[in-house]
């Protein structure tokens, strides 16, 4: 298929992430095994107990919340990222004692530090305290081909966006915002609705 050069690899990787937990497993490049302070082989699946401490600093938490909410603001379909615990999820994620998360942590920590430093340089305040217009200008600069900001922070931006969006859209609030209406018991499975069939040209 057509895809825009630099994105094609990550797109393929991302596509591998969809659908199932096993597909997710395949993409996460797992190597370490018996990790100290990890979740173990036989956790209680009805409980969510995170054995490792969260390690975001106050400044990192603030910057992460501001960026997550700029990427995923409130709209008519659902709340902003920080309102559904995305910052706490990111903190849990980057603090986890596994290789995948430790790699992400390096990128995200360095990226958030760069964001605050760049914001301070440009606007004389950390990213979270900048006006939305200023935050937007900075992010747009990161996305613009050929800029210094892109060189420094684009891979961070992609990773942060994917983790924040993943964290957001895997919650019940995120499901509603996305239009997922399942996880509800039905006595019969109705199949594709008449509207759906019409939409795809089968009715």
């Amino acid at each position: 298929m057509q895809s825009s050069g630099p994105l094609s690899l990550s797109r393929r990787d991302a596509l591998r992430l969809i659908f199932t937990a096993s597909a997710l497993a395949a993409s996460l490049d797992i190597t370490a095994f018996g990790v100290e302070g990890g979740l173990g082989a036989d956790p209680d699946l009805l409980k969510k107990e995170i054995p490792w401490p969260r390690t975001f600093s106050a400044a990192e938490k603030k910057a992460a919340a501001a960026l997550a909410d700029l990427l995923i603001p409130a709209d008519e379909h659902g709340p902003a990222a920080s309102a559904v615990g995305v910052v706490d999820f990111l903190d849990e994620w980057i603090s986890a004692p596994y290789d995948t998360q430790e790699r992400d942590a390096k990128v995200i920590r360095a990226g958030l530090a760069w964001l605050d430093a760049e914001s301070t340089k440009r606007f004389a305040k950390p990213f979270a305290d900048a006006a939305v217009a200023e935050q937007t200008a900075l992010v747009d600069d990161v996305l613009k081909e050929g800029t210094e900001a892109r060189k420094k922070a684009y891979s961070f931006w992609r990773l942060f966006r994917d983790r924040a969006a993943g964290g957001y859209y895997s919650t019940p609030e995120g499901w509603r915002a996305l239009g997922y209406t399942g996880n509800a018991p039905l006595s019969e499975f109705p199949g594709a609705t008449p509207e759906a069939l019409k939409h795809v040209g089968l009715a």
Partner: protein
Amino acid sequence: MAHLKTSKSRAAKYDVVVVGSGAAGGMAAYALAKAGVKVLMLEAGRHYDPQRETPMFQSFADAPLRGSAYPQKPNGYFDATIGGWVVEGEPYMVKKGAAWAEGAVENRMKTEQNFMWWRARMLGGRTNHWGRVSLRMGPLDFKPRSTDGLGFDWPVSYEEVAPYYERTEQIVGIFGTKEGIENNPDSDFFLPAPKPRAYELLLQRGGKKLGIPIIPARMAILTKPMPGRAPCFYATPCGRGCSIGAAFQSTTSLIPYALETGNLDVLPDAMARTVTLDAQGRANGVTFIDRTTGKEEHVAARAVVLGASALETARILLNSKSAKHPQGLGNSSGHLGRWMTDSTGTNLGGRIPALENMPLHNEDGVSTMHLYAPMTVERQKAAAKEGSPRGYYVAWSGGRTMPSLGTVPAALAVAGNVYGKKLKDEARRYYGSFVDLHARGEMIPNEKSFCELDPEKKDRWGTPVLRFHFEWSDAELAQITHAQKTFAQLIESAGGIVDKAPAKDPRTAMTAGGSVNHEMGVTRMSSRIEDGVTNAASQLWDCPNVVVADGGVFCSNPFKNPTLTIMALAWRACDKLIAGMKDGTISAPT
């Protein structure tokens, strides 16, 4: 619902010791206990109760790391497996490049390991999380060598096994439809199949243009109630296990049914080690490690049924060495451990623009595919001309599945560098428009794929472990190439765009050996003593009061996921064991 009340107390002696509690062990215990035989079931893992332990409606936010995989839970936090590619203290050896290495947690599409072995250390074994695909093997699948000169014929025919398919299907509960497709036998006991999803209808229409029939899937998921089990309520992923018993697993059906007879004792945390013999060479029991104490114990029995999984059963037999059986029990022919196969696996993703901005509706269904594309004999013959003599089926996932950590990033990869309100709109637009097609295909047994005891490596209790030799042959490689082309044709004929071109080098798009979890053949049955490990009744040629109930007896490994056939053959083997002990053709130990 029947309860899983088990006790650690056990009698001094049983009629039969059954090793394993999954499809094979569960069915053996059920068939024997129902017939009035006193049975002890040994399970290497812990007790597991799906009614108490299954996370049914939890969202990913209810799990650490949003339910993501980590090394000890390679299929994600909620997967109903205690175990996986690595079980601590129980290594196995694989070839990594030219060297031997311990099997590790790897990406099965990318690993340099020649083999991966999934083990579940829990009551019910792998039935707690399996895919529930339930396909009868066809008449040709029992006679592959007679059909095209490749592989090996079974010493039993489809007609001999068919009555046991019928019985098994009535206990398991399988949905499907009668289609009359040659070598893909129907059942008289199919439950109603759920309606297809929109994307599946598009694939079906595309398949029609290509001459590829796409029919309702055949899954061990209840769409009508059965004794002690509720029908599917079309929510929550089956891989987490099923607390209501709709998705079949031995822990909500066979084991509680067998316990109700009063003839079954279940001993968890009991890792079978060897089969023991009396002075006349008849099996008289099993040694096992009590995992809670680390001590070896012995239980006496008049017969032994091994259903530990094909490879673990082979390991037990290889470790059951004696003066009379220096190469392991059942190995006088030299076939023990040989002819090891797995299913092939490959996949290709794409997206179907017609599915974008779909009117909202619930597509959960039974959480697996509702339709699939079996291979017809005609298409298989055509594929043989391209070097792929054996078939595969095509199945899929896609549409509006429960969004996990990776779902929206995949949509955003298509949308580009969007953020803010635009991100939320694009996520809604693309969500549900993706499909992922996969194939499961037949591997022909070959000389280079086998297991044996490692000369040095031991598990934590000092028992020798397996090491694996494994190679795909040109037939499987050509099959993957064929499947990849078919995926692209199907996606495109459904109006979709493939994620990438079909793989030119099949090795880049193929699962590692063993990693589809369909390991078969290492104790294969044969019509002549010199050709196999068991006879046509699944009894060891060398010791007929030892029965192999699992996939080890398979002579071929066709594209009909093995679990249904394992259960049918296990039931048949137990009936033959009972008959043989009654009429004296199988003698019991003193």
